[in-house]
């Protein structure tokens, strides 16, 4: 009881020091707790959202589905659910001359779907004929809430629709990132709008399948059965097995969150340890007295552990509710960006268990060594301890007086060397913060460089992608006499997902047939050479190369497109940030497959390619398209395409930089604590200096110099550390976010360097300013009497 009281009174006797330790503990626990709670909440929820929709395992298309009795499919062995779910990719107007893709689905039964369920949000649950439900994430990029009447363009027809409800389709990638709108209508409305009276797309979910490999035998059996029923399937697609298309983003965010959480935990543990060490150093004489009056080491250890327990309990009480709140808020923020619902309403008990154990255990665990060492001191040494001293290892270099520089600077650097272990720990933790903070910027720069490469590779300013192939002459005729056009080029097939659907190999690899000397695409070669106009040449991007089993340049490969198999020679491999794509010469392609010479894509190069001029060109093109009969998938400017890619990755990099900043803040608090402990230890010494004539400004300058010196050394060390760290991080994030073929290369961010310098020096200055103010606030008499 009396030992409890002593421990408690010690905490109350130095409110400043106790508050600093508590602050460090609360901050560390809050940071670690926040990321832990958000991890617990998020790690399962995106995919749980996705799985709750009971997503399709197989998507088949056929023009013959009108003759198929869906009930017969549902009766087949292994089929858990099957539905006709027609899909057409049209366009929706979201502003004057601004159209984006609209994925229009026909849903036969909104109330009792067998698979790919939608989650009702607002308005009508079942859209009345002539109206549509829109996916909720689309509301963030377009004014299409309930009651709005956006125009959509299907084929050549522009029609006004009505939004009757909002739904949530957890299986879709977020509209905010894809720049697509998803809408759902009844089969009647679908037939009215598209003219398609019969089902053409079948989605199926199988029971008892654990992987994509398990789906394949079912797929084979099903297509054979359909064939036996006289149904010829055109395409068969296996979506990513039981995994949300953007799960990779969440995985990356979770990794960043987890790694930063661990770092914050370690940093705050170091901080607590340092503070305990300093606190115990001040108690040395009391330890001696207690031993002298009969206390055993065990009793003294218990006494200090009880203080730590009290500190941990207070810190936990303050930090855990905060961590739970912030963790949930962060999970909510990420769920908003990735468009999923947070399903974890109540945190599992082990979450609280881990938080409480960390809160109580962290200060004890990380201070135990210090307590054990501190209480090992002999009674005599403890009794005759008079606080901070100069270590025998401190060597002062003798140099001519004039070369020594300002005396305060010299004194500051010598003071830092008085406790080398503390200096080392402070420097290391601060340097770690600097390294991670700087790495965030460098990785971001790597991404920016990649995007610049993408922009360089794209030679066009605006691209029009048609929903169906059309004659090149007719397509070009539509855009004659446009202002600000330098060159127009046509392709069969095109970039991106939708064009992979439009023209692809049998295995779903997108095909782009373009003039071999096309100036609209300048993809960097990884190996071999670009198309030269010779027949049977094919160039792969790295993703396609992988899908084809990594053939070598010069290999002859069979490639099936629209049912015709060509034997092509791989002439080169290019680097490209896109889906798997293969490139063939348009003239050859037209000769062997595309006899009509129809095209899917028109690319425009502008004379004036400044942003406003390109936007104006895009609007001119939209106006022409509106007055035409041609069905268009989308019109996109090069800047928009780059932005879409950037938006996919930016959420992760922004999280990385934000969390890195947190690490830097924790490190800076470490520096502040270290400085304040150092000031506390030297209070009497500061009193002596003032008695000798030092002004408060001198003391203030001395301590500020100390903080700044630590900051500068930390920056130097941190920047050195950040180089290998950035190189590894760029490679790692490139693999995680993009693909093996799109690994980010190491880049050094100059702006990041300046921001790091600014933040670190600023934090260093602040970290020393606060304790310095405390030191100068004490009168000389009080400083001299300080125990």
């Amino acid at each position, binding site marked *: *009881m*009396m*030992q409890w*009281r*002593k421990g408690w*009174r*010690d905490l*109350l*006797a130095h409110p400043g020091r106790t508050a600093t330790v508590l602050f460090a503990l609360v901050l560390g626990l809050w940071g670690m707790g926040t990321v832990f709670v958000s991890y617990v909440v998020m790690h399962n929820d995106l995919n749980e959202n996705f799985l709750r929709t009971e997503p399709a395992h197989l998507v088949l298309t056929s023009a013959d589905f009108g003759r198929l009795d869906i009930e017969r499919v549902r009766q087949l062995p292994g089929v858990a659910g099957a539905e006709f779910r027609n899909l057409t990719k049209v366009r929706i107007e979201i502003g004057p001359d601004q159209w984006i893709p609209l994925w229009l689905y026909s849903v036969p039964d909104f109330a009792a779907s067998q698979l790919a369920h939608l989650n009702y949000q607002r308005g009508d649950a079942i859209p009345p004929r002539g109206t549509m439900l829109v996916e909720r994430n689309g509301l963030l990029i377009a004014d299409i809430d309930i009651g709005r009447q956006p125009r959509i363009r299907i084929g050549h027809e522009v029609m006004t629709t009505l939004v009757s409800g909002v739904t949530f389709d957890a299986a879709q990638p977020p509209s905010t990132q894809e720049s697509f709108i998803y809408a759902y209508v009844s089969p009647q409305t679908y037939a009215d709008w598209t003219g398609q009276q019969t089902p053409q797309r079948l989605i199926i979910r199988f029971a008892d399948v654990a992987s994509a490999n398990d789906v394949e035998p079912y797929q084979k059996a099903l297509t054979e059965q359909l064939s036996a029923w006289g149904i010829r399937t055109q395409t068969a697609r296996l979506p990513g097995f039981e995994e949300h298309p953007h799960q990779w983003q969440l995985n990356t965010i979770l990794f960043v969150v987890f790694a930063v959480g661990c770092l914050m935990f370690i940093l705050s543990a170091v901080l607590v340890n340092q503070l305990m060490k300093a606190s115990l150093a001040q108690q040395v*004489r*009391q330890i001696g*007295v*207690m*031993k*002298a*009056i*009969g*206390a*055993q*080491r*065990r*009793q003294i250890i218990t006494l200090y552990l009880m203080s730590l327990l009290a500190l941990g309990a207070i810190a936990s009480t303050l930090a855990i509710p905060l961590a739970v709140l912030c963790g949930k808020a962060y999970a909510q923020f990420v769920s908003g960006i990735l468009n999923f619902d947070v399903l974890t309403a109540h945190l599992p008990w082990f979450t609280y268990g881990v938080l409480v154990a960390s809160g109580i255990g962290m200060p004890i665990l990380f201070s135990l060594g210090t307590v054990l060492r501190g209480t090992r001191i*002999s*009674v*005599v040494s403890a*009794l005759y301890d008079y606080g901070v001293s100069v270590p025998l290892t401190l060597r002062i270099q003798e140099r001519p007086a004039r070369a020594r520089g300002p005396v305060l600077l010299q004194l500051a650097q010598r003071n830092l060397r008085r406790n080398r272990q503390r200096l080392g720990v402070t420097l290391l933790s601060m340097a770690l913060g600097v390294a991670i903070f700087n790495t965030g910027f460098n990785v971001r720069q790597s991404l920016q460089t990649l995007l610049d490469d993408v922009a360089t590779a794209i030679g066009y300013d605006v691209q029009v992608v048609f929903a169906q192939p059309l004659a090149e002459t007719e397509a070009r005729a539509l855009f004659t006499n446009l202002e600000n056009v330098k060159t127009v080029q046509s392709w069969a097939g095109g970039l991106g997902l939708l064009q992979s659907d439009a023209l692809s190999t049998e295995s779903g690899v997108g095909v782009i047939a373009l003039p071999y000397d096309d100036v609209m695409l300048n993809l960097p070669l990884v190996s071999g050479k670009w198309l030269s106009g010779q027949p049977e040449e094919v160039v792969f991007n790295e993703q396609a190369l992988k899908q084809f089993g990594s053939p070598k340049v010069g290999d002859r490969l069979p490639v099936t497109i629209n049912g015709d198999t060509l034997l092509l020679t791989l002439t080169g491999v290019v680097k490209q940030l896109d889906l798997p794509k293969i490139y063939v010469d348009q003239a050859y392609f037209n000769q062997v497959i595309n006899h009509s010479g129809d095209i899917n894509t028109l690319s425009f190069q502008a004379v004036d390619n400044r942003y406003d001029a390109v936007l104006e060109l895009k609007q001119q093109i939209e106006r022409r398209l509106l007055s035409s009969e041609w069905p268009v998938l989308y019109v996109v400017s090069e800047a928009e395409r780059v932005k879409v890619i950037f938006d996919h990755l930016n959420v992760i990099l922004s999280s990385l930089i934000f969390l890195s900043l947190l690490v830097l803040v924790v490190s800076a608090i470490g520096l502040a604590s270290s400085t304040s402990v150092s000031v506390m230890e030297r209070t009497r010494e500061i009193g002596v200096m003032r008695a000798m004539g030092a002004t408060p400004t001198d003391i203030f300058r001395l301590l500020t110099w100390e903080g700044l010196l630590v900051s500068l050394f930390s920056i130097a060390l941190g920047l050195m550390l950040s180089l290998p760290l950035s190189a590894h991080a760029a490679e790692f994030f490139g693999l995680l976010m993009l693909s093996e073929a799109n690994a980010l290369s190491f880049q050094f961010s100059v702006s990041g360097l300046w921001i790091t310098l600014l933040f670190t020096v600023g934090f260093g200055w602040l970290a020393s300013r606060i304790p310095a103010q405390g030191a100068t606030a004490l009168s000389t008499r009080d400083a001299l009497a300080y*125990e």
Partner: protein
Amino acid sequence: MTQFHSNNNAPALLAINGLHKTFGSADRLYKALVDINLTVTRGEFIAIVGRSGSGKSTLLNMIAGLDTPSNGDVLFQGQALHRLSENERARWRGQHVGIVFQFFQLIPTLSILENLLLAMSFVNVVPHEQRYPRAVSLLTEVGLLNHLHKLPSALSGGEQQRAAIARALANDPQILIADEPTGNLDQHTADQINALLASLTKQGKTVLVVTHDRDRDDQYDRVIELRDGQIVGASRTQKVA
């Protein structure tokens, strides 16, 4: 070898035989105590005198088991202290020795009553229910009844030293060791403290005091003078009643 033993026939409470204490490394050896031989019996009031650096405090530390000899023995009722582990010495000290420091060394965050209770809780020889009345009684004896719940910082130097003596007596030790107990006090207060210490010998306590002050030699049973770590003189005094 000079022997400085008690003249009375009572059995030795404390016996010091051939005690040496050195500090530093082989090339810079500092001899703090050289061949000290001394016996102390129950109820003696002994002063250890000498100039600064003569080895007084080192000798006191040896007697209190705060430090261990480089050579020789310190025997308490026949038990060699240096053979005890640090924890055993702490327990022994708590039970048999009370220490009074020059700068009082009260725990600043506890009231003086709590300082006594803490000492008792460490040693655990006084039954729990007797601790509070014992602490109050001791503080009453030293004249601090009205200051039980004050923090040390609220007391004068003399009051703090009296509180420190009360704390040293908390576990009813046989030996009281005081290192310059009056060195930081005015003359009048120093007299009071010395009288208090002398009164303890009447209760059978053995009191060893390290002091610079030779004006009070006549108050002690024996005065042992140290110079350069050696006992250079021991006088039996005629105590002033």
